[in-house]
């Protein structure tokens, strides 16, 4: 598996968060999650302007094998969704940290980085899963 992008934060649910510098964040699932799910065939996206709670269901990604929830890593409001996933959900398999982004959110209370993992910490989690 390729190296983790160093500018992202990660969660235990194998999601990634990118700070966009304007108080908003972009959220997606990691390459590990996409590989474990297999070929994605459908993504259910939230409505723009929808409020989400931290840990609440925000989207659903479905592969040939199974459906999996995508949780909001932080409380906030959805300000954009990746509409291209509707016709091409495999963008998530092809480029999970880039074109396969899922949701952009405006945060209610800022981002508590201590709640998330650095690339190194997430890499350590993946290494432990491999054992």
């Amino acid at each position, binding site marked *: 598996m390729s190296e983790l992008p160093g500018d992202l934060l990660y969660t235990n649910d194998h999601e990634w968060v990118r700070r966009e510098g304007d108080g908003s964040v972009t959220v997606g699932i990691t390459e590990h999650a996409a590989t474990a799910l297999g070929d994605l065939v*459908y993504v259910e996206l939230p409505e723009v302007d929808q409020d989400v709670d931290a840990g609440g269901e925000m989207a*659903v990604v479905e592969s040939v*094998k199974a*459906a999996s929830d995508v949780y909001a890593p932080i409380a906030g409001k959805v300000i954009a969704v990746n509409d291209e996933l509707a016709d091409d959900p495999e963008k998530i398999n092809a480029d999970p940290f880039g074109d396969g982004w899922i949701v952009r959110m405006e945060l209610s209370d800022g981002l508590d980085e201590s709640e998330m993992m650095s690339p190194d910490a997430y890499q350590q989690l993946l290494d432990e899963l491999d054992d």
Partner: protein
Amino acid sequence: MGSKTPFYDKHIEAGARIVDFGGWDMPLHYGSQKEEHHAVRQNAGVFDVSHMTIVDLAGERVRDFLRHLVANDVAKLKDYGKALYTSMLNADGGVIDDLIIYYLGETSYRLVVNAATREKDLAWIRKQAEAFDVSVIERAELAMIAVQGPKARELAAPCIHAEYRDAALALKPFFGMEAGEWFVARTGYTGEDGWEIVMPAAEAGSAWDRLLAAGVAPSGLGARDTLRLEAAMNLYGSDMDETISPLEAGLEWTVAWEPADRDFIGRGAIEALRNSPDRQRFVGLLLEDKGVLRNHQKVVVDGVGEGEITSGGFSPTIGRSIALARVPAGDYDRAQVDVRGKLLNVRIVKTPFVRNGQVRIDV
């Protein structure tokens, strides 16, 4: 760690993601389940099916035994190598397993039963065989592959020993033949042409290598499942089990009612259901809304009642979600499915969904 087939090292070599399947370490896919699915529909793929259980039966009364054991009638098998698909029922008419029977002679038949049901099947067959003095020999030492797809036979033919190659290529659909220590049958579980090939384990690796070198795609259990779902072929444990009659699992075509005096196990129980107005339907569903149908989701038929999806998933060939479902009796062709709390619209369609590379339903 589960049991390993003779192809295990080849799976690892080909980059397989290994999963447990009924106690066996089997390949789920080798990178992309969808690409493997398309390879089988458009060209050729090879599946390791060595985990399935081969049982050879022999004895003077083996024909009488099988006419008692299974719901279809082996008396239909008159030509050497002819195959018959059927199920073994318990006394209540529930399905113990589905299987293929190959006719190899008046006193000799070969059965292929499922992997996950191996122990109970063998125990049941042995118990029923006692009264008929039939020998029941499991052939666990053999390896088995399915080579499937429009180009499968052409690409796999060079693997067959030259002496038997022409005869193997001349096999009609649903016939098999012994080829020395090998066994080749024009059968499968994908809705495509192809062969299932049984061979000694020692020859498995070289056969695998030759197939891959010829351009046959190694294909895993994931693609096997989406292919068989498109072909509307039942999966034991999902579409039917010991609590389900073959009549409510779309398997009436595998039950031989005639002759009426053939006393197969479970006959009395399923005859009672045969003309019942309450008999559930077993149908194909096409999802008209966006989403993916999954096993165990509830089917809601307005004004009629509720049923359940027994096999649901995404059809790579159609690009939509399809399912097999058991639904209440009645004359209707639309329903809804509870998908994660939302009622989505489905249309009841005539199966198979896909056969020989062609979509067979109106999309």
